[in-house]
């Protein structure tokens, strides 16, 4: 949860209803017992009343410096060593020291048990807020959303990271930091192309088995390889023993292949086994983070909705003091603040704001629907079961489909959304739809498509690889709406790709459904 959104003035306390219990705490100070007690009460609300389903929680108290540490290793408690994390740390630290950016209140990790980092300098109210947010909200989402269930294995991620860290360290020892770095640099450059979007059997390999696999492979090599073997010239594993017809070869390589890292790991002619393993590690991490990119808005929305609900219920029963409630509302309203597009503070749609607004709206539609809602959402309008409806949405949607399914005209009106088209040939940006009867569906469709990660990342596929002849690798970029790749970035990335492949690499950009090549890049690996 970011802590530095601009504040939204004018907070009013909601009226208290119901019986007054004793406040759980008063004042800013917290200690471990108090956190424990508050957790237990909130657990009752989250599980008993809201019906959430969570992994067991582990709450870890850390300092600001440790929070910076955690930032730089993508929030993971363990990570292999790489200079880019050091760079990120230096950058974050500089921003933090200059006061340009404050730290997040919490970091939560999709693991089992679910690890929540909370900062020691938070007040007790903030601790309650972040625990409700992360330990219940995010945790429920991690455990139940289909994306996470399909793609990540929360049980094994920490073990796998430990393995990855040890493996990278071992490679550095054996082959030198430079050699390892150059492979990792290249792999990181291709990380977004290291994801398989279609589920196949090979990605269902549990991470636990990954560790096992690497160990048995190495044992096998150690058993069978003798000193004499090393004097033999290295055999290119990718080289076919006999020439096959081009199409046969393509089929054998499984082309076209969208997961470039996977393809390189399996078929790059020049890589050593340990280099392939490094690619595999980066690829597995990319796959692990892929659901987070697909569900950022829903995930934050779910967590924000959960903390809002839990703290309000605490307050209603009198378990939260008015002072704490004001402090909470102040933080909450700055987190869900959405500046308008022409505001200086605007930096894109705030996922917290949109997610929270949509989920509150679903709640409203379930309990107090208008006739408009009944037209738009006949399935659940007025069904009187907001939590059940929300749990269903959290489990079975990702950002794109969630917007497409649940964005209501009311939210569009509240946000005053409007759809624009920017054609680079045109001197003006055209407004295509606004929040009115004619525009709702168009705005909703377009907003949904901006949340489609697959459309956001360039569509690149390995389309041809000549393993017996020139060894040239061909990547095809399927251009949509005429948007080509950023030229300098593309060439730098291709350089990395060529280094892994070991031979010439060609990238062609072709408009979807056409045959004309728009642009072509070609690089040779630098010696």
């Amino acid at each position, binding site marked *: 949860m970011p802590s530095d959104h601009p504040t939204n003035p004018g907070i009013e306390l909601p009226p208290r209803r119901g019986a007054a219990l004793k406040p759980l705490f008063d004042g800013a100070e917290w200690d*471990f017992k108090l956190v424990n007690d508050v957790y*237990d009460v909130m657990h009752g609300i989250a599980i008993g009343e809201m019906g959430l389903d969570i992994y*067991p929680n*582990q*709450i870890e*108290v*850390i*300092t600001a*410096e*440790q929070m910076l*540490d955690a930032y730089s290793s993508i929030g993971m408690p363990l990570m292999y*060593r*790489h*200079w*880019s*994390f*050091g760079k990120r*740390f*230096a*950058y974050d*630290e500089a921003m933090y*020291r200059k006061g340009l950016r404050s730290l997040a209140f919490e970091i939560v990790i999709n693991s089992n048990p679910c690890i929540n*980092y909370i900062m*020691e300098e938070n007040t007790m109210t903030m601790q309650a807020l972040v625990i409700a947010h992360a330990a219940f909200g995010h945790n429920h989402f991690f455990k139940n959303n289909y994306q996470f269930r399909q793609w990540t294995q929360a049980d094994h991620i920490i073990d796998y990271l430990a393995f990855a860290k040890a493996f990278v360290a071992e490679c550095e020892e054996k082959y030198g930091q430079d050699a390892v*770095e150059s492979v990792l640099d290249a792999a990181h450059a*291709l990380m*977004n*192309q290291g994801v398989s979007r279609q589920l196949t059997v090979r990605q269902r390999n549990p991470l636990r088995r990954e560790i096992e696999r690497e160990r048995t492979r190495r044992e096998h090599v150690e058993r069978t390889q003798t000193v004499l073997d090393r004097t033999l010239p290295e055999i290119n594993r990718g080289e076919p023993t006999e020439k096959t017809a081009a199409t046969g070869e393509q089929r054998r390589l499984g082309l076209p292949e969208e997961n470039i890292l996977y393809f390189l790991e399996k078929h790059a002619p020049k890589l050593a086994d340990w280099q392939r393993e490094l690619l595999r590690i980066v690829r597995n991490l990319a796959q692990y983070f892929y659901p987070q990119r697909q569900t950022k808005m829903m995930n934050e929305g779910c967590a924000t909705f959960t903390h809002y609900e839990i703290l309000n219920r605490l307050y209603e029963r009198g378990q939260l003091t008015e002072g704490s409630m004001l402090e909470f509302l102040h933080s909450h309203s700055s987190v869900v603040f*959405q*500046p*308008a*597009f022409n505001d200086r503070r*605007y*930096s*894109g749609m705030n996922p917290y704001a949109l997610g929270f607004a949509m989920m509150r709206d679903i709640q409203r539609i379930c309990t107090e629907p208008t006739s408009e809602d009944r037209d738009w959402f006949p399935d659940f309008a007025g069904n009187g079961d907001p939590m059940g409806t929300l749990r269903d949405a959290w489990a079975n949607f990702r950002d794109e489909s969630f917007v497409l399914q649940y964005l209501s005209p009311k939210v569009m009106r509240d946000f005053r*959304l*409007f*759809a*624009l088209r*920017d*054609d*680079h040939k045109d001197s*003006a*940006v*055209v*407004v295509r739809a606004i929040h009115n009867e004619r525009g709702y569906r168009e705005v909703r469709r377009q907003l949904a*498509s*901006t949340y489609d990660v697959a459309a956001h990342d*360039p569509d690149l596929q390995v389309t041809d690889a000549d393993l017996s002849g020139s060894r040239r690798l061909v990547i095809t*970029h399927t251009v949509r*709406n005429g948007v*080509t*790749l*950023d*030229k300098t*970035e*593309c060439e*730098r*990335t291709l350089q*990395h790709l060529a280094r892994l492949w070991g031979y010439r690499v060609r990238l062609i950009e072709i408009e979807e459904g056409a045959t004309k090549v728009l642009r072509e890049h070609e690089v040779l690996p630098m010696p």
Partner: protein
Amino acid sequence: MQIVDRRLNPKSKSLGNRQRFLRRAKAEIREAVKEAIKNRRVSEVDGSERVKIKSKNLREPSFSHGRGSGIRDMVLPGNEEYHAGDRIDKPQGGGGGGRGREGSPDGDGQDEFSFSLSREEFLDLFFDDLALPNMVKVKLKDIKSPKPARAGFTSDGSPARLNHVRTMRNSLGRRIALRRPSEAEIEKLEQQLAAAEADTPRDEQLIAKLRSEIEHKRRLRKTIAYIDPIDLRFNRFERVPKPTTQAVMFCLMDVSASMTENLKDLAKRFFMLLHVFLTRHYREVHIVFIRHTSQAAVVDEETFFRGTDTGGTVISSALEEMMKVVRARYSPADWNIYAAQASDGDNFHDDMPRCLELLEREILPVCQYFAYIETAHGERYSDTMETSVWSGYTEIADGHPNFAMKRVSSPDEIFPVFRDLFSRTGVAA
């Protein structure tokens, strides 16, 4: 649920990442450090430093959609005035809806950024440039030169370190606790026994009782030792940093017009290195800047390095000024005196004898070390051409182990003077 307190975990988990990052950007950071040294005061050489670098080695490219091509659709919040079909003119440069782009830390903007180097990291790079051997670097950075100091007591040690008071106190306590009978007690019983034996009629029962009691007490005295190994206490010593003292460092420099900015910069490097060295060994280091042309004056650092003056060159004036300051403020009994003189080798010819006399008679006897460095432009630096100062100083160099002279024309030649310093004074070697 489980709460874990991680606050006490080892800090800087990302140290390894940072080292890799610095290694990666080394060339650029070194440039930045060089730049920083120019703007630093001599006494500030070992503080942390903000550096700003721009490095192509730090790029992390990835495939991304380029701007300025094709058709883009977007949805923005906060519409107030627009209707479907409205056309909004793009701002100059064709950015259009560029506002919608989220600021990402991995964007191009990060190619250049500034961050802080720690003191250690800064010194590492500073030393790197001066071509210091690694051994010496360690010594320069190592603040402590250990010396044993009392640190409590221990139950084990060499006999020479036995602490009698503590040992006897333990022994006494143990004897009292175990009720070890004293010699006097036994004597008293023996007297009673003697009395009882002399008594008539003999009370055999009493005699037997006294005898067994004496027997028991004697046995106790034998089994309970007067001093037991567990009583022993030894003085314990720990190696702690040696108490440091104070030093004063004189920086003498010729500032006549022939000393260019470049030569002064070389001299500054040398003074900085000396200062780092001194602060490692002395608790308090004072710096006195004396500049001279034909007259000498004590000045502040800014004037020393930046100011120029015109006039001839009379080195003895600076030496006299230095002795004046020594007599007034820095008694050789209390202060370690170091002096470093930088010059381009020109001196008023008649002045040399006076200089040598001052050095031999007054300065060298009170100085820990006197270093003369002659800064020279590349083309002037040749063995055949000896400057007047150089040939003059050569005469006294042999007889005085605490005098060193060296010519430098680039930063990496500064260190040899220091090697002399370490090998001769034996302070750190």
